[in-house]
């Protein structure tokens, strides 16, 4: 007996492969190059940065504009901007992935459980997520960070709580559709446990839709970290972070615009890199 499987929906939602996505998309190549560049800068900062990022070079204060000794100039405290940008890349590229990972784990877990169980569990989690999403994110940052103070851990927690509802919606949608598939029913009928069905049958199919979103989320989180730094509720000084560098030097923009311009360019380019990569991955996924 032969069974016709051609009409059956594909068992697995395709996971976007990096190589084919890159081959067909100039956007993805550009994005990967930009992100790769910053990752390299972040990794090499301890050996490649010309100066200690927090060292005040008072002699440079006479003329803080870019020069042979300080390629991007110094800030108003005589600190080398190039070195601070390089070390700042370390900060953002350490915090952003951790925060996105935390948001993804939390959102995916809740989404799996809610989408699979439905009923009141689903309704309750969805309501809470709606409330969080209806709150302007930045007001939420202010309220929470005003109470608990600024630290790397608090930034990660705030971003995880505010971004998880978006991941939750995506995962919940996919899970609700997947639970109708025959292989999930089959697993249930052979007596597999609740957690087994979620982890082995459903979770692998979530990777595809999530991987594009993770890239977008990394871009938004880079913006969020920059914004927190700019508002003065990010990492405590003096350690360099890009948003904080802009905050410190913005009032001097009419005298020395380079101090605010270079970190602004750094943060913008990294976000553009993440977003171009996300677009490339999405196109690759659609072609697959």
């Amino acid at each position, binding site marked *: 007996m032969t069974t016709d499987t051609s009409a059956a929906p594909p068992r697995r939602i395709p996971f976007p492969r990096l190589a084919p996505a890159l081959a067909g998309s100039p956007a993805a190549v550009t994005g990967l190059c930009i992100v790769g560049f910053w990752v390299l800068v972040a990794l090499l900062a301890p050996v490649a940065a010309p100066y200690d990022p927090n060292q005040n070079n008072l002699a440079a204060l006479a003329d803080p504009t870019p020069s042979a000794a300080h390629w991007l100039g110094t800030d108003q405290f005589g600190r080398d901007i190039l070195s601070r940008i390089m070390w700042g890349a370390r900060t953002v590229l350490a915090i952003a992935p951790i925060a996105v990972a935390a948001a993804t784990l939390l959102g995916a877990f809740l989404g799996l459980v809610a989408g699979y169980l439905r009923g009141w569990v689903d309704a309750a989690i969805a309501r809470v997520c709606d409330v969080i999403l209806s709150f302007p994110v930045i007001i939420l940052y202010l309220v*929470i960070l*005003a109470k608990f103070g600024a630290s790397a851990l608090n930034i990660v927690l705030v971003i995880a709580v505010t971004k998880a509802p978006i991941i939750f919606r995506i995962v919940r949608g996919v899970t609700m559709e997947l639970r109708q598939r025959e292989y999930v029913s089959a697993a249930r009928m052979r007596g597999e446990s609740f957690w087994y069905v979620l982890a082995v049958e459903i979770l692998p199919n979530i990777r595809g839709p999530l991987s594009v979103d993770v890239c977008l989320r990394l871009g938004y989180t880079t913006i969020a970290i920059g*914004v927190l730094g*700019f508002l003065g509720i990010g990492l405590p000084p003096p350690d360099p972070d890009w948003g904080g560098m802009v905050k410190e030097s913005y009032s001097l923009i009419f005298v020395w615009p380079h101090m605010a311009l270079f970190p602004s360019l750094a943060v913008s380019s990294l976000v553009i890199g993440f977003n*171009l990569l996300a677009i490339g991955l999405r196109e690759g996924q659609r072609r697959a």
Partner: protein
Amino acid sequence: MIRYLLKQLAYMAATLLAVSFLVFALNEFAPGDVARKILGAYATQEQVDALTAELGLDRPLLVRYVEYLGRVFRGDLGESLIYKAPVADVLWDRLGNTLYLAAIAFAVVVPLSIMLGTLAGMREGSIMDRGISLFGVFVASVPEFAMGVFLASVFAVWLGWLPGTSQLTSGAGWSIASQLVLPVAVMVLYDMGYLVAMIRASMVEVMRQPYVRTAVLKGMSMPRVIFRHALRNAMIAPFTVILLQINYLVAGVVVVETVFAYPGFGRMMLEAALAKDIALIEAGALVAVFIAMLTQFVGDIGYAALDPRIRI
């Protein structure tokens, strides 16, 4: 319809109540906090305890919350520590400034996004589509503070055409109108990327519909096809998204207001948060959520009015 609206209103009220309780509990859970804030860091523990007892802050959280709600309903939002004035006075003044800024930005960003989104979505994959989409990605990728730095560097520092700050006082010879240009430009650019992408996607979807192909094949001119057939249907899906931008434009403009020193609601919230001005934070958070709920509510009604298939 009426039942749906009542249900939505009840849901809004419940959410507001929940948020107000969370913010209240977050700020006033520890009994000593408020008195410590009023007396400052150098007051002794005895003084803090005495004031806490005097203000009745040592009573259970729920009792204090109910009292707080009662005061809010009577219109008494408390005193602001940093402005040394009733919260209500500060709040409405700042909110008015922000609404002014938001209204201008909204009036610019919506027609501009509809135009660009329609142009891009008209012919999927055309040079125009690629150009506009790429532009959208770029402007949405630049954080507001960085865009503020770029625009201020060019138009205020380099060209000297516009002022670098927008304090709404007619000092230094800059008119109020010229002070609004840069903040509005930053808000519009940052918001536009997302809106253009949504409208473009909706337009692409509509242009693939059989009735559009029929209109084209029967020889109707392209502008007529777009205006008579495509545009109205393409605007249904993004309508809610467009309205939700009000949310960002009013409550999310903390960064833009900080960059340009604009005396609005967002900067007030930042100042309140940095100074731990509890009464002001609580009132501001309530207003922000109320605006969010209201736009969502109006969005739901408008969506139903636009789309004849939806009956609520």
